[in-house]
């Protein structure tokens, strides 16, 4: 595999910013979507930049994931964009963008997706508490110590090279160097226009990525084994979710939960008081708001196949519920049922829109058997 080596003496962020500037001045794109530090200095927000001079104030690959990039793109490009927009995203943000495109919530026409090897992100609340310490912690993350990273980032094995147009390779590269790799025809064309379509070896990067991937996969298996012990079965799941106050922030920051109005906030779930009393009476008591478990399982069944394990839900939960770890674990399981991986490919259809006659035979068999047996008995 080939890519163009770019000098990045001040780090990959500067190399990305330089590319964005060149793209703007050479009219390869008309605007760039990139994170920038907020005026108070303690978090980051997405800026759609038209004027290259503003790019000096932006920061690709920020230490936290405030608004999930795909969510920003959903708000930007649901009905397409004017001209071309280059967006700089983390790999999980690209994957979520791909899912949203397949769900017809993002129009990819006009978007140039630029990604970068991701060392993980810090918990949002920790960063807000002490941005200076956060910046130092993120430096550590970049040099391989991920002890301060979010739990889902610690076990993320899809940290590199999503199906973006251009990807900045950093892992395993000599310091002060980065490599731009094209991942699509659009990407290759852009590199040609930029005079960057040179052949350079990517062996070191590929080895480093493969090694890290192996480590992360093992850590992921281990973490999920522990977590499944803690949450398996209705009782343990209820206990895990017991602190849920039904604020639905997990869903409103989720890049995949695109519904304007959630079913679980609709008229359909409103109950007359006699039904509520009746339900409470059945068990002698009922928590209020009720059906928090149903909400989480319902949301899970709606979006799990497209879950990219980005961790935005857990970052935002006011009750410190490990909701991203839970959804990510279930997402792995549901996606593997269909040999599907959220965001892996633009052309691979969503499992729920694919009909296969012989699908999931193992899961439906017991029901059929029971039914047949009952039919047969007198």
């Amino acid at each position, binding site marked *: 595999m080939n890519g163009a080596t770019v000098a990045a003496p001040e780090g990959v962020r500067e190399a990305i910013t330089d590319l964005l500037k060149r793209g703007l001045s050479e009219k390869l794109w008309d*605007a760039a979507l990139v994170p*920038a530090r*907020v*005026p*108070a200095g*303690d*978090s980051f*927000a*997405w*800026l*759609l*930049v*038209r004027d290259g001079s*503003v790019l000096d104030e932006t920061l690709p690959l920020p230490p936290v994931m*405030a*608004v999930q990039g795909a*969510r*920003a793109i959903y*708000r*930007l490009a*649901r*009905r*397409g*964009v*004017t001209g071309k927009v280059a967006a700089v995203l983390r790999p999980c943000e690209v994957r979520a963008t791909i899912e949203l495109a397949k769900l017809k919530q993002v129009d990819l026409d006009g978007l140039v997706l630029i990604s970068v090897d991701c060392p993980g992100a810090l918990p*949002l*609340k920790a960063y*807000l508490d002490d941005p200076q310490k956060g910046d130092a912690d993120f430096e550590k993350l970049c040099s391989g110590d991920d002890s301060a990273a979010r739990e889902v980032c610690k076990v993320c094995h899809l940290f590199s090279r999503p199906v973006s147009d251009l990807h900045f390779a950093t892992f395993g590269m000599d310091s002060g160097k980065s490599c731009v790799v094209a991942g699509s025809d659009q990407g290759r064309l852009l590199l040609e226009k930029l005079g960057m379509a040179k052949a350079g070896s990517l062996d070191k990067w590929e080895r480093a990525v493969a090694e890290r991937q192996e480590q992360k996969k093992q850590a992921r298996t281990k973490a999920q084994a522990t977590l499944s012990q803690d949450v398996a079965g209705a009782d343990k799941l*209820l*206990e895990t979710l*017991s*602190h849920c*106050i*039904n*604020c*639905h*922030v997990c869903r*409103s*920051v989720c890049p995949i939960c695109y519904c*304007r*109005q959630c079913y679980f906030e*609709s008229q359909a779930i*409103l*109950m007359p*008081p*006699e039904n*509520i*009393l009746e339900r*409470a*009476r059945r068990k*002698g*008591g*009922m*928590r*209020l*708001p*009720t059906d928090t478990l149903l909400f989480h399982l319902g949301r899970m069944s709606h979006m799990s196949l497209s879950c990219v394990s980005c961790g935005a839900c857990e970052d*935002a939960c*006011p009750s*410190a519920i490990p909701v991203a770890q839970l959804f990510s674990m279930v997402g792995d399981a549901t996606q593997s049922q269909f040999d599907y991986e959220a965001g892996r490919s633009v052309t691979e259809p969503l499992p729920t829109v694919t009909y296969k006659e012989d699908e999931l035979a193992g899961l439906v068999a017991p029901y059929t058997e029971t039914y047949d047996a009952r039919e047969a008995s007198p």
Partner: protein
Amino acid sequence: MTEALKITKTPDEAIRALLAFLLESGKASAVLSLDRIGQDGAPIYSLITEAKGLESAAPLLPMMPSNAGKLLAEMTELAPSPEPIAAVLKPCELRALVELKKLNQANLENLLLISTTCGGVFPLAIRNNGGISEKLAPYREALAKGEVADGIRPTCRACEHFVPYNADLTVALVGGQANDGTCTVLINSSRGAEALEGFEGERTQAKLESDAIEALRAKRAEEATKLFTASDTAAPGLDGLINIFGRCLACRGCSNVCPICYCELCYFDSVVEDPTPSKYEAQLRHRKATRVPPGTIAFHLGRMTHMVISCVGCGMCADVCPVGIPVATLFSMVGKSADKVFAYVPGKNLDEDLPLKKYEVDELSHLGEERIES
């Protein structure tokens, strides 16, 4: 002096016994109370129908996982409760319920409303900061002396409406009597009197107002001045607002948990407000860059104009904010000044119309004049 019942139990035990009595005597088919659920004892409201279900109940726990006014409104939105329900709520939760009633989002029939003089609640984040158990003793001591307890929500520190309005029964928690192993329940209505009939306790005359309550009122007023004149939130101006709301994720957590924001679909999430390519183009025509998603300040100011007249300062919004924006401080500060204009106290008087429903010919004319002059 008010009719009262003096019970020789601690307030927590007394109220649990009262709730059990109401269920067993059939005076209530269900009670809404704070509960400790699961092995972790998560503080969550429960609708309890059997006396034995009250074992885990903590009706007076200084926590607010949801605004109970919102919960009762959601229960009674479609129709009044067909059976009697007793609810233990904090004064601001009761005020929220009254506002929701005025906004036609709740039915109060068949509800026995039990409230307390309130020392404030701890933020939800306390779960990550060592839990609540060790904080309860100092909290109760502060209340007995009429002091502002440590560690409570910022808006609770500044709350001057800690004596409930519209409660059928008021449990005295502020002042010495709350810590002497007895519980005084003041009877404010005939519904309250009927509920207590047959419940063990000494009938007496009591006065809610005490030195401790006076002291707390004065201290809370002081705290309110302090909170609402803090340099970063008082009169922030546009730059200040950008500073405060810059880190907003547009997660809508604040409006989701707000008792007053009852809309099923917020205007700011509606199709009308969808950002379109042409809207972004319009922005970029006269600036070098624009924020995505857009409309952060517009959302907060819009939400403010929609609900602030009825804001009860409960603090739920700030508690759920994932990025620590002092939403409640700002909203209750603005609410306070908006209410002053109309001499209105949200949730105080059921018979008083919402200011926006009332037409007065001479209203706010000075504001109009000022505008014309400038």
